[in-house]
């Protein structure tokens, strides 16, 4: 009996420990972002913050240009997301449900892109944008984000559509729906879950992009949050720890909030996609 209790206790302890390992760095980051500079030299790094020094956030937001980086990331991410969703739904539908000769080949062609590491396309893309005078514009980032978001999104949408009931479409056709009306009124509403999964996954990917934005954008007024963070830490170096933690926290919390809100849907979508994949 006691043996079992010890075992249970030990198991509980290990689980708590794992949760601590996953969560504690984030908690530490939050406390660190509220510390004043002198606290770093007076107390060990793990000490809690003495007060709430919010000035760090103000510094990062204005002097560190986080406001600008945030805006840029939002614009490029949101515009590319809109197109990724439109394209993945239409292409996904066309290759799974519509009847034409090349649909299997086209589906394969798009799926192939999942395997391609972005680094492989980087050099030619740079040359193309250079020639087209598109370097240092939002347009080149948005175009690249859309193009590289397609493969995985279309693949996910296909997975969902395969189990999409044909009778509903048939009923719609009998009621006199054309293809466009059917897409908009029948197919899209029924694919809400798939669309949310694509949106959230691609949001994480695009928000996270560093390679493209650091290669194509050198103008600091157009930098996105990831390149901005790198540049920011170089700028403030090792001196202003509080401001660095504040800027890191700022880039982290939108993701955490988004994730907490959409947690259930995302988990379901991921597991469903994974089982099929």
């Amino acid at each position, binding site marked *: 009996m006691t043996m079992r209790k010890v075992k249970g206790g030990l198991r509980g302890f290990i689980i708590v420990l794992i949760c601590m390992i996953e969560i504690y760095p984030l908690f530490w*980051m939050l406390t660190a972002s509220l510390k004043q500079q002198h606290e770093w030299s007076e107390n060990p790094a793990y000490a809690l913050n003495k007060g709430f020094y919010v000035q760090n956030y103000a510094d990062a937001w204005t002097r560190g240009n986080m406001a600008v980086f945030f805006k840029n990331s939002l614009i490029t991410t949101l515009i590319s997301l809109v197109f990724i969703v439109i394209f993945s739904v239409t292409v996904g539908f066309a290759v799974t449900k519509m009847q034409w000769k090349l649909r299997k080949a086209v589906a394969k062609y798009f799926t192939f892109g999942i*395997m391609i590491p972005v680094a492989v396309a980087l050099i030619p*893309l740079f040359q193309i944008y250079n020639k087209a005078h598109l370097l240092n514009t939002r347009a080149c980032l948005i175009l690249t984000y859309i193009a590289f978001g397609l493969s995985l999104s279309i693949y996910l949408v296909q997975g969902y559509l395969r189990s999409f009931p044909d009778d509903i479409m048939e009923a719609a056709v009998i009621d006199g729906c054309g293809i466009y009306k059917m897409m908009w009124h029948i197919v899209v509403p029924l694919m809400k879950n798939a669309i949310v999964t694509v949106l959230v996954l691609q949001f994480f990917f695009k928000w996270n992009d560093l390679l493209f934005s650091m290669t194509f954008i050198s103008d600091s007024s157009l930098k996105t949050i990831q390149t901005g963070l790198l540049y920011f830490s170089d700028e403030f170096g090792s001196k202003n720890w509080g401001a660095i*933690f504040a800027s890191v926290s700022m880039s982290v919390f939108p993701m955490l909030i988004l994730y907490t809100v959409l947690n259930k849907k995302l988990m379901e979508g991921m597991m469903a996609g994974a089982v099929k994949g």
Partner: protein
Amino acid sequence: MKKVLGNKAAIALFVVPALILYTALVMVPVIWSLYYSLFSGSPGLKWEFVGIKNYLDLFRDKNFRNALMVNFKYISVVTVGQVGLGLLLALMFKFWLKHCKSFVRTLVFFPVVLPTVAVGQLFAKIYEIQPHYGLLNSFLSAVGLQDLVQPWIGQESTALWALCVMDIWVAMGFYSVIFYGALLDISDDILEAAHIDGASGFNLFRRILLPLLRPMIITSLVFSFSGTVKMFESALALTKGGPGAATKSLSMYMYDVSFTFNKVGYGSVIAIVIFLICVCGSAIINKFDVRDD
């Protein structure tokens, strides 16, 4: 029905724009890389056709060999770490956890959604030694392990491992959620039958769970592998490839060669090597799936 779903105009409208964009910005550049790899210099600057010379240079390039080694070490440690620990966590959730399952699951997924650069900055401060001890060193010195205090990412011997730890920390929650989903799909009848037959602990895992989870494990390995082959963002954010070239991956070396040293042709060869490793590696991992069936 047939008429509606066979509507040629609609198909064209649905497929063609995406097809053009994808072809122009993904497929054409990949093929273009092949073409570039036969030239030296960069377009407009000493741009000469050299045939396969770039490929031959690769074998004599010390920096390339170093980057390849770094990448291989990183891939093997991180892939095994991510998938292995993810599986271990999932097993714990399934068999040890009685309450708050979904709470714990949500919690361990937190690091997955964080921006890579932010995580890199955070860990840079955790490993810090100058001007103040970071989190890790201050803990070590607090518990009396002063001897272990060291510049974790400032010395060649530990930098790569510090990076691996960070990337495993980030992603193990992701794999644990995937495996947990797969474990929930295994019916309790099977587990009960195994129990009655006397299987438990490691035996149960090896004889019952492992075969059932195998497709999932293969998929996860491929996924993790193709993520780690790219190795760029996290290394750049944590160590910038240093100290020296201790954490400089193939992607980073390619980036340096083509954008800092302006040798676009040679950079393209490295890009193609990355692509080949990605394709071959995934194919090899997938082989394990077929053999035993």
